[in-house]
């Protein structure tokens, strides 16, 4: 395995700092996604205000990571593994930001929260939210451990996310054909399902980047 210590200590510290920033941004995105699912499924009003704050912070992280990367490129001209750490941090932070945007958008669609809502309508959506949350959690785990195997697991999980999203949408449509009480709200839920599926695509891309970071080559099926 490659030696962990750079001759120039501050270079190693800068890479470590970048790595830590990505992890921090990732865990913020993770809690935003959880909050947004809570806002939708248990109508948690406080979650919605937390979401707005977290999203701001996530955007700030993105800008901070951008600056760190530009400084690294200019100062260090990174090569090999260091180049891959730098480039993947750039890509992963972009995907995390998009996941944050999608989760925030989902929560906003739920305002004002309805007074009562059939749990039947939410059943498959909850499952979809849970699988996307665990997909994101696993991808961050893969990033922290720099694990190729975990990244491949996350990539493969995306198929289940897509299937579940399709199923959710079908179930909601069939519910709507029978019960039109929450028509507007339920229509928004269709977008939520679609956005979760798109968040899953971003998580898949994060995992593909982790694979590239570790292996130095692109993931192929």
């Amino acid at each position: 395995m490659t030696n962990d210590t750079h001759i120039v200590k501050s270079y190693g510290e800068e890479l470590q700092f970048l790595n830590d920033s990505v992890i921090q941004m990732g865990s913020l995105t993770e809690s935003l996604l959880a909050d947004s699912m809570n806002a939708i499924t248990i109508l948690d009003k406080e979650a919605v205000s937390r979401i707005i704050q977290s999203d701001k912070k996530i955007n700030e992280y993105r800008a901070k990571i951008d600056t760190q990367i530009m400084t690294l490129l200019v100062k260090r001209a990174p090569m090999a593994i260091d180049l891959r750490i730098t480039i993947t941090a750039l890509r992963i932070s972009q995907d995390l930001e998009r996941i944050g945007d999608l989760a925030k958008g989902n929560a906003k669609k739920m305002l004002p929260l309805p007074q009562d809502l059939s749990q039947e309508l939410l059943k498959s959506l909850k499952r979809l939210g849970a699988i996307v949350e665990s997909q994101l959690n696993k991808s961050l785990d893969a990033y922290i451990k720099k694990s190729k195997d975990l990244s491949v697991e996350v990539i493969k999980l995306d198929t289940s996310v897509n299937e579940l999203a399709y199923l959710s949408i079908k179930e909601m449509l069939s519910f709507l054909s029978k019960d039109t009480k929450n028509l507007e709200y339920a229509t928004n839920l269709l977008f939520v399902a679609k956005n979760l599926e798109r968040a899953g695509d971003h998580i898949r891309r994060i995992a593909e980047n982790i694979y590239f970071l570790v292996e130095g080559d692109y993931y192929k099926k």
Partner: protein
Amino acid sequence: MSTSVKISANHLNVFYGQKQALFDISLDINQNEVTALIGPSGCGKSTFIRCINRMNDVIDICKVEGEIAIDGKNIYDPKVDVVSLREKVGMVFQKPNPFPKSIYENVCYGPKIHGIAQSKDELDTIVESSLKRAALWNEVKDRLQEPGTSLSGGQQQRLCIARAISVNPEVILMDEPCSALDPVATAKIEELIDELKKTFTIVIVTHSMSQAVRVSQKTGFFHLGKLIEVGSTEKIFKNPTNNMTQDYITGRFG
């Protein structure tokens, strides 16, 4: 682009007295490509390129085993004429070293002694075309009789390149050609290398990783007299196979 092998080192071992400087080096250098050799000081990369034109012959205690073939012919064969070998394999050094003569004489010296040109007209043509190919002509055409040493460092290095190419070599060896130059002069030499590789096969020793990435198609990493890894420059600097290579190019060596 042609990828035929121009120079092929096979199981090359080099000794300076009791000390072995190169260990079993086997390396193919492709025609019309730039091959960069990198590695820490004392790793043997300069020793290796000095074997390609038998510069090490001038060192009494130096002993070479194995072979280096150019176009399939072993240059260490006793029948090989070293003077004509060096006509075929030119060299540019770290510090520009023009002769203490005029710019014109610096370039025409080689063609004269190798008998490439006899008449003044022929020499004039060679001097002009060599200086043009070395991207120096426009800067010196009105002062050809001035001493070569009156030029700036970057110009002197291009003069040395003009001198090297004036005898129509097939291979140009460059031993850290830009280490004494400023970024502008370095950029001019790098641009020139890119142009020259269309005609010549170039081997360059450099301590600058980014220069190796910019100018070369193939890179070899030397360490303690051994060739640790060789491959396409892109592969070596993006995803090297050997951990020692990775540690060196990322600055983790110590």
